[in-house]
Every structure is written in structure tokens, then in C-alpha cells.
């Protein structure tokens, strides 16, 4: 009797499902609501950043500061081939499979228990692409039966996550115009949300939302004022106000690439995307604030309309960019529980904003030195600029004045994501202390023609380190602890309820620190530099940790004194998985 009753219920449920959402009937795998719950589901890692807020915080504590010293590898899996270079990906874990993207636009599925490869997908890339900043990829996204990732030729590809076969493959921009894509997609309300990238002059930053099942465009929001957005194929209003902060037609090619993707807050239904630096590079040629470059934008997830913006570097003249992740968190400020968000900007300041309206509540220096500004004015929200810190205008005649600028254009923090612990209330920022000499170069050439370029050399500003992992109290701006590293840090951070903080180093180590004190508790040599983002999950009753190893990214492309710290590091391409011995 009982059995029959449950059959009846199941039948009823199936019928309802067929009526309500026929398209969902055949799907199996995570739904959009599963993705929203990723931070709380311990048995998987479904999204970049471990949940839409991307705090990179796990509630697991089986592995903790008391026992992490015993952590050992379970297996390692090679990405194989001759294609190595930078492995900046964050693994995803679902249903006994670890999914990881590799350099050169590759995607791999490994058995999460044995490390055996299930399948591999290599995007066929046109050989004419000359990527500006290494051939990296930062991760994939899962939805239903699909796993989705972006490629260097600016395409978005959805594969069947069990077979690796293509379900859809969409061009998001033209690589011949200088566009590319390296960030992990974000999935919100059955839409894949992506930014765009490209270092070339003429690229205009935009955020796109596509139907996750078909790849068709739902809305697009260009991030430079004057450009029109679209929603379901129809115009959906202009971004900002034409020529409000740009002169002439420079807004048409204003830059602002959204190359690092974004975060999402289900409570406000807002997407938070950072925007890149304005073009052209030399700020003297484009008077004005150049909105919305070097900013954080809050965008309505349903319509693609900008709800608020906060510009961290108005009239950016240092390539500070503003793409860094904006991480929502809740905390009590001045005795009031508040909905907040934080961003550690390339310009060297850590910003705390009210995530409902973009109001600035705090701005704190998180690097040793900022030569371009002396603090941020909390009333106006603008930096207190230091005039002589701005690189000069090109005059064509001779080598310009050398300006020392810190942070260097690679930033106080670059792409590598920070983490926030709900347990300690601290942000863990992978930062770098370095500066650059910059000057106008009268003899330069571009596309066979004379050009006015900029010359620069990046250099360390401390004797004992470039990299520094810093624990920042977002309420006070106090740096609670720091770990110094000889080479620049270039990998993401993970923190757990087990009082742990994990991050990798170019020297090849994955390291674990005490989240409260910064004491180094464990390290493991992976054989190549670690520039990926670690994750943790629970499987068969045990806690696992995984990270990619493979030195590369933008740092090795630049020489000078900084190169001394990493020139002997070998390339690689390996997934490492760890747990405690039984």
C-alpha cells in the first residue's frame, strides 16, 4: 500500500514537471538554484568562487589547523601534451568528477576518486591569434548536463559533461578585432553571464547574458557611456550619458574590458562586474573621468540595466584597471547589520561598499606604497591624487621624464581572487609589492609605423619579498597578519571553517596558514608554480583539497629585476588532489 502510494506521487510529480517545465524533463545535474546554494553544499564545487558571492569560503572543518600538517596527496593528473604555460583554473567537482580547464582553451574531466581521465576537449583555435597575456583559462561553469567555458578566440562552448561532446558553440566577439576570453562564466537564473577581454585599442567592454540551454543572447550591456544596451534583441537604453566624461568620439573605442567576469548577489538580484582601463593608454589624450572604466558596476540580472557604479580610478593613467572581483558579505558596521561588498583593486586600495547602492564606506591601503594617490576621500569617493605621480604626456621630441609609480601596472593585486572567511570576518588578499619606472618613449613603432610608446621597468620595492598574502579586517582596514613571499603571488585563495587559508606560490608550493594568526602550517611542492585557485569538498566522508599547478600567466612575460625571483621555475600542467590519511 505504502509502495503504491509513493508510485502514485512520483507519477504525479512527473506529470506536473512535464506540464510546468518540459524543457527541464530530460536534464540532470545542477539547476540554477543548486548553483545559488553552492557555498552551503559541502559535497561539490559547482561554481567559480564556490557560490555566487564567490567568497571562496568552505564550512568544512574536518581538515583544520590542528591536523593540516598531515595532509598528503591522493593523486596527481597531468594535462599532458606539449601545451603547458599558465594553469590559472579553479577546479569544479560534481558527481564523482573533477572538471578543470587548462591552458590553450582545453577542458578536462577526471575521476574524482582515481584521477583517471574521463575525457578531454581541446578547442580548435585559429593559429593567427596572438594573445596578449599568456594562453590561460580560469575555469568552467556547470548547469544541468552541460559544462561551459570560454576560449581564447572569444567563443563560449557548452559541452556534455559526461561525454565532452559539444552541445552549443557561440562566438561572443571577433578575435580579429582583438577580443579574447579567459574568465570563468557565471550562471544566474538559467543565463550564462560573461565579460569580454582584449588588450587592443578599440575594444569596448561589455557584459553579455545568454540562454544557458541554447547560447542565444538575452541581453548585452556595453560598459562605456554612449553605447546602447540590448534586451531580447531590442535596444534597452544607453550606458551613462553621451560625452559626459569623454571628449569627441573617444567613447567609441574607450576600452573598459570586463575580462575577469563577475559575482552575483541573489538578495539584490545584482551582478557585480569590474571594468578595465580606458583606451588609449596615455591619459593626457582623453580628458575626463572616462566612465565606466576602472569601475565596479552593479547590473540588474534580469535586464542588464546598470543600477549603480563606483569608479576606483577616475581617469586611469597607470593601467590600474578595475576588474577585480567584488565580493558580497554581510557584517555589522557602526552597530548596524549591513549588506556589504569588498574589492581589493589593482590600484592598491581595498574598498568596502554598501552593495545595495554603491556607497563607499571604507577604503584602505593593502600594499606597501601607493605613489599615485594619498588615500581615498570617503565623502566624495574619489582618490586624493598626487599630481607628480601621473606619467607625462608624449611630446615626441625626446625621452620623457621618468616617473616612479607604485603599484606597477601589474597591480597591488591582479586577477587572482581573494577569499573571505565568515568565521574570522577577514579577507585574505593575495597582493604584490612592486613599482615601475615609466617614461615616454619617443622612438617606438606599431604596425610598421612610428608611434609614441611608453617604456617601463618593473622593480621590487622591498628587499625580502614581492608577494604578500594579507589578512584584512574590512571594518577597520587593519592588516591582521601577512605572509611574505619572494616571488610575486599569482594564485587564488581558499579559506575554511577549519581555521585555514590556502594559497599557491610560483616557487611551486601549495601552502596552508592559520586563518587567525597567519602561521604557516603546511606546504607541498607541486613541481611547477601554482597560479590556480584551490578548492575543497567532502567526498565519501572525507575532506579533499585540489589545486592546479603550472607556472605562467602575465608575470613571466615581463623581465627586469622582478624576473630574478622566478626565472628558474619550470612549466607544468598538473591537477593535485589532497586529503588526510585514514
Amino acid at each position, binding site marked *: 500500500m505504502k509502495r503504491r502510494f509513493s508510485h502514485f506521487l512520483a507519477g504525479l510529480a512527473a506529470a506536473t514537471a512535464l506540464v510546468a517545465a518540459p524543457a527541464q524533463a530530460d536534464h540532470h545535474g545542477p539547476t540554477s538554484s543548486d548553483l545559488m546554494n553552492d557555498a552551503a553544499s559541502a559535497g561539490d564545487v559547482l561554481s567559480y568562487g564556490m557560490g555566487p558571492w564567490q567568497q571562496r569560503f568552505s564550512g568544512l572543518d574536518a581538515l583544520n589547523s590542528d591536523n593540516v600538517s598531515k595532509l598528503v596527496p591522493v593523486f596527481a593528473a597531468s594535462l599532458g601534451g606539449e601545451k603547458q604555460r599558465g594553469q590559472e583554473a579553479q577546479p569544479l567537482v560534481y558527481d564523482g568528477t573533477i572538471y578543470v580547464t587548462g591552458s*590553450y582553451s582545453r577542458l578536462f574531466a577526471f575521476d574524482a576518486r582515481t584521477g583517471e581521465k574521463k575525457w578531454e576537449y581541446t578547442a580548435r583555435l585559429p593559429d*593567427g591569434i596572438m594573445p596578449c597575456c599568456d594562453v590561460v583559462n580560469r575555469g568552467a561553469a556547470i548547469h544541468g548536463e552541460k559544462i561551459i567555458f570560454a576560449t581564447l578566440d572569444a567563443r563560449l562552448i557548452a559541452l556534455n559533461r559526461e561525454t565532452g561532446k559539444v552541445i552549443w558553440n557561440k562566438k561572443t566577439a571577433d578575435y580579429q578585432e582583438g577580443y579574447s576570453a579567459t574568465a570563468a562564466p557565471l550562471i544566474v537564473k538559467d543565463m550564462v553571464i560573461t565579460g569580454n577581454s582584449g588588450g587592443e585599442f578599440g575594444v569596448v567592454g561589455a557584459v553579455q547574458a545568454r540562454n544557458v540551454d541554447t547560447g542565444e543572447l538575452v541581453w548585452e550591456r556595453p560598459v562605456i557611456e554612449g553605447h546602447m544596451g540590448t534586451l531580447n534583441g531590442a535596444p534597452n537604453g544607453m550606458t551613462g550619458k553621451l560625452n559626459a566624461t569623454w571628449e569627441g568620439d573617444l567613447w567609441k573605442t574607450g576600452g573598459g574590458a570586463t575580462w575577469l567576469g563577475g559575482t552575483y548577489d541573489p538578495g539584490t538580484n545584482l551582478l557585480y562586474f569590474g571594468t578595465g582601463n580606458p583606451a588609449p593608454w596615455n591619459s593626457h589624450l582623453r580628458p575626463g573621468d572616462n566612465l565606466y572604466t576602472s569601475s565596479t558596476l552593479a547590473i540588474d540580472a534580469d535586464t542588464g540595466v546598470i543600477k549603480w557604479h563606483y569608479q576606483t580610478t577616475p581617469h586611469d593613467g597607470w593601467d590600474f584597471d578595475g576588474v577585480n572581483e567584488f565580493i558580497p558579505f554581510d557584517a555589522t558596521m557602526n552597530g548596524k547589520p549591513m549588506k556589504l561588498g569588498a574589492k581589493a583593486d589593482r590600484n592598491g586600495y581595498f574598498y568596502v561598499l554598501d552593495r545595495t547602492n554603491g556607497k563607499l564606506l571604507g577604503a584602505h591601503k593593502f600594499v606597501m606604497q601607493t605613489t599615485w594617490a594619498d588615500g581615498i576621500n570617503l565623502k566624495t569617493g574619489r582618490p586624493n591624487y598626487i599630481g607628480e605621480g601621473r606619467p607625462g604626456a608624449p611630446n615626441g621630441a625626446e625621452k620623457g621624464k621618468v616617473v616612479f609609480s607604485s603599484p606597477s601596472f601589474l597591480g597591488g593585486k591582479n586577477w587572482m581572487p581573494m577569499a573571505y572567511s565568515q568565521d574570522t570576518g577577514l579577507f585574505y588578499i593575495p597582493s604584490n609589492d612592486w613599482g615601475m619606472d615609466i617614461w615616454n618613449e619617443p622612438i617606438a613603432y606599431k604596425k610598421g609605423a612610428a608611434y609614441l610608446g611608453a617604456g617601463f621597468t618593473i622593480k621590487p620595492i622591498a628587499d625580502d619579498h614581492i608577494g604578500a598574502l594579507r589578512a584584512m579586517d574590512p571594518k577597520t582596514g587593519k592588516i591582521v597578519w601577512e605572509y611574505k613571499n619572494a616571488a610575486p603571488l599569482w594564485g587564488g585563495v581558499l579559506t575554511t571553517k577549519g581555521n585555514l587559508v590556502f594559497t599557491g606560490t610560483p616557487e611551486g608550493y601549495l601552502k596552508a596558514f592559520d586563518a587567525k594568526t597567519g602561521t604557516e602550517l603546511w606546504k607541498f611542492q607541486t613541481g611547477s608554480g601554482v597560479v590556480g585557485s584551490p578548492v575543497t569538498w567532502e567526498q565519501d566522508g572525507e575532506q579533499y583539497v585540489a589545486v592546479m599547478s603550472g607556472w605562467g600567466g602575465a608575470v613571466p612575460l615581463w623581465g627586469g629585476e622582478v624576473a630574478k625571483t622566478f626565472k628558474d621555475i619550470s612549466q607544468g600542467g598538473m591537477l593535485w588532489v589532497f586529503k588526510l590519511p585514514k
Partner: protein
Amino acid sequence: MESGRRTLLKSLFAAAGALAMPAALRPSSLWAAPLAKVREAGVLRVGLYTDNRPWSWDDSGKPAGIDADLARALAESLGLRADIALFIADEEVSDDLRNVVWRGGLLGFQPCDVMLHVPFDRTLMQQEDNVVFMAPYYRESFGAACSPDAGNCEVVPAQFKGHPIAAELDSIPDFYLLGHAGGVLTRDLVHKRTGYEAISALGTGEADFAVASRAQIEAAMADAPEAGIQKRHGPLPMMLSPGWDIGIAVKENSRSLGFALEDEMNAMIADGRMAALFSRHGVNWQPALASQSAA
């Protein structure tokens, strides 16, 4: 004054010859076999910019332009087939030299035997020791032109305030116009992808004044003779660049090929074929400064 590296190299060779150095003792890299290898393969792979009219561009799948014609003539003179690889310009020429001449692209782009349209400049040569710069074959400089109705094209550019003014994005003409007379023209600037397009815009009513390279000006005028574009004859006041020479680049160990190409280019210059090749694209050939002082 620019004597060029070529002259220096030639004298080195002369010295070696005078001493009758046995082949086994000659520096092997100078006598490496790329010319023989290229002959054996039967193909000369030439790297050209893909969006650089009138020098080289993609004409419905076929490489066209002055440099494309020059590449074919050079291959033919060596009894080879030309394989022209059009590539997208990177941020600076040194990136292009790395991608196209001495290393290749990261995603499978094969290095070329030679790249044309490389600036022939002493400072650049000192920075780039993976390639050899040779055969300066043209002198380029920036100039200006006007629409048919713009009136006197010889006035200072500031006089065009309030009229649309065209230039290639992020180029010296762009910097020049944005900064000219304290920035009074900033709001009037119309940015184009190339200098050729900037000049062509004068014939379509889109712009009244444009700054571009001389080859871009002459070719765009020749391609639209009915448009009535007027060339400015006088120099531009306070122009940021005095002009530059254009040559070729081969890999550091491919000098034998470089010398063979240079010899052929010198022959083309001497018998008028070079000037004829340029004039087919509407451009008056101008000898490189470096080649004049070396002669």
C-alpha cells in the same frame, strides 16, 4: 648620417674575404643555410600585416598591396613560390618580430622566412638581437589632406576647429591632432581603423581634414580619383615624427637569405621596377634615407 648595420656587416665580410678565411673557420651562423633551405622547400614564407592598406591587406581572401606585390616579386626572383602570411599587429613591432620572425605564435603560427614593412631604425636594431634588419626600401612620413570643399589645405590644422577631422586610432596622427594647439580639435576628431580609411573619409563627406602617412594619402587619393581629395603640400607644424625608413627583417641566423633579398631589392630600385610597383598603387616611391647615405 645613418650608415646602417648593413654597411657595417658588408665591411666585415670584405675583411673576412681579404684574409681568405677557410670555410671551416668562418662564424657558422653567418653562413647558415636558410637560403639553401628556402630554395629546397621551393617556398618563401613572407609575413605581412593584415590590415595595413596600401601596404598589405586581405582582399577577399587574397593578400593585396605594395608589400604583397613586393613579396611575390622577391619570391619569383629566387625561383620560389610566395606564401604570404597575413598577421594581426600586436602592441609593438618587437612583439610582431617575436611572433612572426624569430619565435612564432603561441597557438601554432609558424615563423616566416622574412617580414616586410619593418622600421629600419638604429635604436630598434639595438634592442632586437634575435633578428637582422636589412634592405631599407622606402622613406615614410606623416602628412595631411583635405576634402574637396575644405578650402585652403595649407593652413594650420587648428583652423579646422568645428569641422570633422579624421585619423587612425591610437596613432601618431591621433596623438598629434588630440594635442594640437592645446587640444582645441579633440571634440572634432573622427577615429578610423587605419590612416587609409581616414583619408578616404575626406571623399565621402565624413571628414574635412585628415592626417595619415604619405603612402596612405597617395593611395587613398589614387583609389578614388573622382572624390577630389586635396593633398596638403606643406609640412605639419610641430609634427611629432620626422619620418622613418622601412626595411625587412630575417632571423638572426638567416643572413644569407637576407642578403639575397637585399640584392634583388637593390636591383629593383636600380632599374625602376620598385618605383613602378609602388606607382601601381598610386604611391610615389621615395628612397630610404639610410640607403641614400650608404650609397
